[in-house]
């Protein structure tokens, strides 16, 4: 069961501004039936001010709540004001959403953005959000399962400070089905955070760091189960290790251990590391 805030509960139980505006000035859309959630946002303008907004949502409790609160957030505001609304603002207004449900708030933002885009395109005033570190092709679909573009991923990364593929999946769904796009997402993340990652370690520094993590964090764990691990060599990003003791003979255990060792090293030293048994 999800831990939904009282706000979320209130909004899915009593959604505000449900329905269609027949003479809407702009309609924003996001998501799709096949992907499991979709949203239509209708906006009625009075000059530059959003006079009325209504929504129709196909989706879970937090998707309905995100859409509902979004309409409340934008009614009475100017277009310039709502342009600044991010998925984070939507989630915050709801008193937070479970991590795995952040994509619902993103859907809200996307529908709003879609609406604004349509409006400003007509007025010929649309400027892309500035996204540092990105390639030029924002419309390139990265995740075909959920039809998520590079631009959408970058925007979620930027607004929410996402660092891992898993976080990107929570916020945009990309990577959540077949997983084929995970490599591409990783590349986008690496590219985006490139300037932030500490300077590349020298080979010696790397070996020392790996060795320290193995001694202090991995080995004690394995010893608890009567096994141990020995660092044999580091070649590029391949860490060669030998499993000893209880875990050495058995294939199944050694797979589990390899995965464990690899995830710790990826986490603590460098996400590009791979572990190999010798």
């Amino acid at each position, binding site marked *: 069961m999800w831990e939904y805030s009282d706000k979320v509960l209130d909004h899915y139980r009593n959604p505000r501004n449900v329905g269609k505006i027949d003479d809407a000035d702009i309609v924003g859309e996001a998501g799709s039936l096949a992907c*499991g*959630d979709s949203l239509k946002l209708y906006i009625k303008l009075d000059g530059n001010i959003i006079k009325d907004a209504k*929504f*129709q949502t*196909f989706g879970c409790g937090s998707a309905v709540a995100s859409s509902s609160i979004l309409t409340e957030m934008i009614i009475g505001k100017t277009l310039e004001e709502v342009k600044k609304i991010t998925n984070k603002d939507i989630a915050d207004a709801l008193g937070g959403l479970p991590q795995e449900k952040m*994509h619902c708030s993103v859907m809200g933002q996307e529908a709003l953005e879609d609406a604004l885009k349509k409006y400003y395109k007509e007025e010929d005033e649309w400027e892309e959000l500035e996204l540092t570190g990105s390639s030029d092709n924002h419309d390139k679909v990265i995740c075909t399962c959920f039809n998520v573009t590079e631009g959408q991923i970058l925007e979620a990364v930027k607004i929410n400070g996402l660092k891992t593929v898993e976080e990107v999946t929570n916020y945009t769904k990309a990577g959540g*089905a077949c997983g084929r796009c995970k490599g591409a997402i990783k590349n986008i993340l690496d590219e985006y955070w490139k300037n932030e990652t500490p300077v590349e370690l020298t080979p010696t520094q790397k070996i020392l760091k790996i060795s320290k993590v193995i001694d202090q964090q991995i080995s004690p764990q394995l010893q608890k189960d009567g096994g141990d691990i020995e660092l044999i060599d580091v070649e590029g990003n391949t860490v060669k290790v030998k499993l000893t003791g209880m875990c050495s003979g058995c294939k199944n255990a050694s797979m589990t251990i390899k995965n464990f060792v690899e995830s710790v090293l990826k986490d603590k030293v460098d996400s590009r590391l791979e572990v190999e048994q010798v």
Partner: protein
Amino acid sequence: MIYFDNNATTRVDEKVLEAMLPYLKEDYANPSSMYDFAKKPAAAIKEARGKIKDFLGANNEKEIFFTSCGSESANMAIKGTLSCNKEKKHIITTKVEHPCVLNLYKALEKDGYETDYISVNSEGELDIEELKSKIRKDTALVSVMYANNENGVINPVKEIADIVKTISPETIFFVDAVQASGKIPINVKDTQIDMLGISGHKFHAPKGVGALYVRPSVRLTPLINGGHQERGLRAGTENVPYIVGIGKAAELAMDSLDYEMKEVKRLRDKLEEGILKNVFNARLNSSVSNRVPNTSNIGFEYVEGELILLHLSDIGVCASSGSACTSGSLEPSHVLRAMGIPFTALHGSIRFSLSRFSTEKEVDYVIEKLPDIMDKITAISPYQEELMKLKQRRG
């Protein structure tokens, strides 16, 4: 509260709890000990083993091993036989197994096993011809669930066992019977099933106890090494109260099988018919008669399952959904996808699963309340035109 989620877990029968209590209180001895004080728990385990033997139609108590759950039973069977049989590297299962088998197969793939996953049709029935075509002389194991947890569809495991053994007599055949036990009669006697696993909490024993039937000719390596318990195949001091519990639950389940297959089925059918009649966007995801008597999986088109569950929960009704949003995964249930359920209904599929404690009043309540809930939810849907067409079509 109305609990229609008995495929997830069941309430512990009072009689089961009563039978267990002495072993949580005064009769706490380790059954392996030498003194008289240990005789009662030792005898209780023996008695429980006898009941599970009868429950599964095994020949001998020695064929029954107690485990901690259904997942352990499956792991013990599958890993146990494969590590005794290392030269064969091909294994088969179905696309609709429980994760305790599917994820184990995925892990085995990484260990170098070649796998085949057999398809089901749109009703959830296994493609037996495909299965036949995949069995080889070097197939180490075939694993097929007795009944599916999501749609309730029963597989003809006796016939499948014959097929497996005809094509490849040495291939081991394991049956995950977790969702069949307590709902339909299980009888391994006169079948060629090699191993079969069950889990207590699906038939009114507590969570945390299961059992595995192993034909005497099948060799296994233990998952848990240690003491001599369970004839050396599953070390660890026996969980006496829970073993007593699963034994008692099996006894009660045998007594109420008739009720399950008639009365629970009648209630399930009533619920199903009532919902299909009252709710215009409902469709039955599997309608075959060959289903366990308690399970119904219904797809509600153009709405999302979690939202239905939340609204049901608000009126005190517990059910579950194959929707992506409930599980935290982003994809809808692998079972419904394997069945090719149309995506209009995929995300809005709800499983209702009854038990012998379910009542007619509860069924009537859900049939009565569901249309209101669905009106509320469909009113929010962006697919008003589609819903309107559906309404007209279904009258």
